[in-house]
């Protein structure tokens, strides 16, 4: 029992040391959220044309986006990256199957842990002071939670796939540069997908990235009826499976390539 207590105390101490970083992170997200809200506010004030979303819904969407930022496939696992760059991944070749799982789980944890930590205070502040609304029904809220879980699975699979492309230096680098930008654009982070021109909607609907941001948020808002949550979740899982299989295949091929090249 004492060992457990001292472990918690040690963790707490570490967290206190990161207080400045945590506060800075929260301040950054507050700032970005506020800018976006203000810009939309100015736009909404400029016209009476009906828009795909109400202003209050936009505000909620934006704050949800800031809170859930940590879930997105943007940051690479630096340890894995160094391993891949140096080629020492060859040493882990014994069980490539397990290697993928190992990396997947790491990436998953790296998304969930910090997001839980950061999102709760941010959501609280947004709900209380910044105009964010609660979901219109419990079912919508559940739909959001379910698809957020699905989004995390999807994001992790995508991120792991991108990480694996690091086995190929030049082309890998291009993909790593392109991936966050593609996600930013097509997931709904730049602009809620509904605001893109009507011609673009079929493309946006087809791509997997909507499942990362737009789907969970619109379920939250009730714009996607809660009844559809399982269908959307299934779609997320489908794309997740696709990325996992692609990642596995690429890893196997990539490590084979490393072995052939001699590390």
């Amino acid at each position, binding site marked *: 029992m004492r060992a457990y207590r001292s472990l918690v105390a040690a963790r707490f101490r570490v967290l206190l040391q990161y207080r400045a970083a945590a506060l800075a992170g929260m301040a*950054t997200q507050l700032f970005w959220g506020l800018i976006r809200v203000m810009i939309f506010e*100015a736009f909404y004030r400029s016209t009476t*044309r009906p828009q795909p979303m109400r202003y209050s819904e936009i505000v909620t969407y934006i704050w949800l986006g800031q809170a859930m930022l940590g879930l997105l496939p943007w940051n690479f696992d630096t340890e894995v990256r160094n391993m891949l760059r140096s080629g020492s991944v060859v040493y882990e070749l014994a069980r490539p199957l397990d290697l993928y799982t190992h990396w997947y789980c790491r990436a998953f944890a790296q998304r969930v842990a910090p997001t839980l930590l950061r999102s709760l205070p941010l959501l609280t502040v947004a709900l209380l002071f910044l105009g964010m609304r609660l979901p219109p029904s419990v079912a919508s809220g559940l739909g959001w939670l379910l698809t957020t879980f699905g989004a995390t699975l999807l994001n992790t699979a995508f991120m792991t796939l991108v990480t694996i492309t690091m086995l190929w230096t030049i082309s890998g680098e291009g993909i790593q540069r392109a991936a966050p*930008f593609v996600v930013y654009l097509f997931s709904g982070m730049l602009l809620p997908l509904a605001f*893109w021109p009507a011609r673009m909607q079929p493309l946006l609907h087809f791509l997997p990235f909507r499942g990362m941001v737009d789907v969970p948020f619109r379920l939250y808002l009730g714009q996607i009826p809660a009844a559809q949550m399982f269908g959307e979740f299934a779609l997320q899982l489908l794309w997740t499976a696709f990325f996992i299989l692609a990642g596995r295949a690429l890893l196997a091929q990539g490590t084979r390539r490393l072995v052939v090249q001699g590390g």
Partner: protein
Amino acid sequence: MTDAWRLYRHYFALSLRGQMQYRASFLIQLVGFFCTTIIEFLGIWALFSRFGSLRGWSLAEIALFYGVIHLSFAFAEIFGRGLDTFPNLVKTGDFDRLLLRPRSTLFQVIGMEVSLMRVGRILQALPILLWGAHSVGIVWTVGKALLLLGAVVGGTSLFLGLFVLQAALSFWTVEGLEIANILTHGGTETGQYPLDIYRPWFRTFFTFVVPLACANTLPISLLLHRPGALPLLGSLSPCFGLLFFGLALLAWRQGVRHYHSTGS
């Protein structure tokens, strides 16, 4: 003065050569910067097609704001890249070596790296700026060209000043440097629009504390002959950016003085 220029040319040439060595990677990063910045304007365009106008400003006018602020930030990024790695210099004690050389420490830090791949940002900002100017139908005169140039100069000095301040912070503390990104990247995002669309307190902050207004709203309003534009203030605006940079230099000097008495 001439040997400072000569030294900077030397630094520049070395930086250039170092980056050209990995040409493919350089190109990828350059294209990367191009793409990541141009989608911002794509978003703005999409919003304008939905909403029609923004508090009386048209898309073409916003394009001017967008172009100017991104040009300013890009130039600051290109030349101020050495400041990014500065905190590490203090941490490892390598800053001592800079003090042992008969040159300004800030000059040496800035000389350390010239990041040319950020030209990607310029490559998309410039066409957008030109398109905006053309669509609005500006009749160009020397005065107007100078005004635009002044806006970019003011903006670049402002952002460079922010970079210097951010780096100078590491003379005093190891933590809390991330927050300055709010002002640099956040400032760029803010500056894509005229300041009058924002809430009053926000406007005040970015006029008097971080004089972003001098880099975009004041000069561009004047350029577009907007009612309420202030001719004197608008044309003097680059001075505020340079003033801000001067203040940042003072802060740097304070930081060095602090380093002299504490050693780290």
